[in-house]
């Protein structure tokens, strides 16, 4: 090994001399330097195994929800829509290494949604009660040194009746022997979709664009303590409302039309800025195999929506190769300044308005349990380079919505 390294160093020095040094005094020296350079290139090519699988991550999730928050059109035409839905999410992630400096990660999330609110065609045709969405999301990372990683992300999303592109660069700096890691990224997402209205009419084509800038920090505080924080700002332009969402309009009945309630669409501002800040402290206790994490997130936007989110996680190893994670989350938000439960007939069409219960002022609570089996640390009889995980969580809002989420995951390294 030492000899091999010595030869490599000699070849490297010769190649550097050939590339950067003064002109060789003789043709022999030039030929020797060129030969050394070729030898170095050959050795590098020989030692780099080239493209290879590095990791595989598979997860299948199932979610079932009931209650408000779903403005589904899959129920009876003209009715309020079904108030239950399920979502099946078979997701996959592959990591492939191209060489010692370049790695690619491809994520493919597939969503199959029943009674989807995006399926506005169902309001009139009931042609489909299901909505499928798929995304191809590729991040390629180039690591020119041990200190810097440069990445570029590119993705495409398709779902009825929408197409999206996403892309942007990111930079990661690993400083002070990787005790401090700083990440910066910019991302642009452009959506083009058919703006079905709440009656199911397709009004042509419309678009919106989101531009985001994010900064993150991971800081080692001690041998067992870690701090991570992030800040993100997003600017959006275009059609921001969900065009198929409808809201109640109260009216005075007449002899010709005795209805007291009719419906109309929601309307959002044409642009919006949103900011979020997150900070978390993680503490590991090696003696007992326990890890605790506490995080806080603050959100605000220019429509006067404020949100506070507190999350705590507790990890406990049962045996060195099996741990359990319990988590709790508390979220509270105010509504945007244009949220109203209903509007009166005769309103000005350009009035900003929404009754979307996802945007209402509410508090949500979440609790969950996750079990992870790490076969790399398991007894020899069952040892392997993979892991399994199983999770269940319950999400509940105080404005009338609850959801149950379960997932099964498998991870393998090659």
């Amino acid at each position, binding site marked *: 090994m030492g000899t091999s390294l010595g030869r490599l160093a000699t070849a490297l020095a010769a190649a550097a001399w050939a590339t950067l040094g003064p002109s060789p005094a003789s043709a022999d020296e030039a030929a020797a330097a060129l030969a050394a350079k070729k030898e170095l290139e050959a050795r590098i090519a020989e030692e780099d195994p080239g493209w290879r699988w590095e990791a595989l*991550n598979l997860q299948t999730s199932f979610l079932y929800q009931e209650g408000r928050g779903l403005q589904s059109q899959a129920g009876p035409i003209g009715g309020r829509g079904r108030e239950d839905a399920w979502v099946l999410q078979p997701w996959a992630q592959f990591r492939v290494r191209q060489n010692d400096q370049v790695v690619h990660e491809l994520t493919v999330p597939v969503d199959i949604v029943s009674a989807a609110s995006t399926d506005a065609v169902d309001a009139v045709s009931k042609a489909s009660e299901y909505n499928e969405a798929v995304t191809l999301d590729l991040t390629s990372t180039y690591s020119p040194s041990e200190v810097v990683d440069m990445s570029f992300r590119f993705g495409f999303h398709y779902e009825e009746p929408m197409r999206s592109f996403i892309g942007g660069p990111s930079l990661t700096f690993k400083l*002070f022997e990787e005790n401090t890691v700083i990440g910066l990224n910019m991302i642009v997402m452009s959506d083009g979709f058919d703006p079905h209205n709440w009656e199911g009419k397709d009004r042509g084509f419309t678009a919106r664009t*989101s531009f985001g800038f994010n900064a993150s920090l991971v800081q080692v505080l001690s041998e067992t303590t870690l701090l991570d924080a992030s800040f993100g700002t997003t600017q959006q332009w275009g059609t921001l409302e969900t065009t198929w969402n409808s809201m109640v309009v109260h009216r005075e009945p007449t002899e010709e039309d005795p209805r007291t309630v009719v419906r109309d669409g929601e309307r959002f501002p044409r642009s919006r*800025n949103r900011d979020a800040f997150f900070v978390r402290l993680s503490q590991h206790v090696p003696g007992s195999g326990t890890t605790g994490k506490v995080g806080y997130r603050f959100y605000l936007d220019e429509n006067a929506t404020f*949100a506070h989110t507190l999350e705590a996680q507790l990890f406990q190893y049962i045996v060195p190769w099996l*741990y359990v994670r319990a988590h709790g989350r508390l979220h509270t938000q105010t509504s945007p300044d244009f949220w109203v439960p209903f509007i009166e007939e005769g309103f000005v069409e350009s009035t900003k308005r929404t009754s979307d219960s996802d945007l209402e002022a509410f508090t949500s609570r979440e609790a969950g349990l996750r079990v992870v089996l790490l076969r790399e640390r398991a007894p020899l009889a069952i040892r392997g380079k993979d892991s399994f995980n199983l999770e269940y969580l319950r999400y509940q809002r105080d404005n009338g919505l609850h959801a149950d989420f379960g997932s099964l995951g498998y991870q393998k390294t090659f």
Partner: protein
Amino acid sequence: MRWLLRARPPLDARLSRAVAATLLAVIGAASSGCVIVPQSRRGALADPTMLPVEDSLEAKARDKLHTTREAASGGNGQPAGGGCACGN
């Protein structure tokens, strides 16, 4: 960031400043106690339970659960809203 330049109700402005100041103070206080821990002594930090993102697919799935049901997405490396017509 446009909210910084706009006139806002006094309570919102006070709350924003208070939260921002508290967060900066917490990070400042935490960072001031930093020491450089050599790689050979970071075994506990390398434990799977200490990773900032324990499982990226699981994190994305949970994030999607929240961003499609709440009004407060973003700040996690993703643009807030867009992409699935339901990011609110």
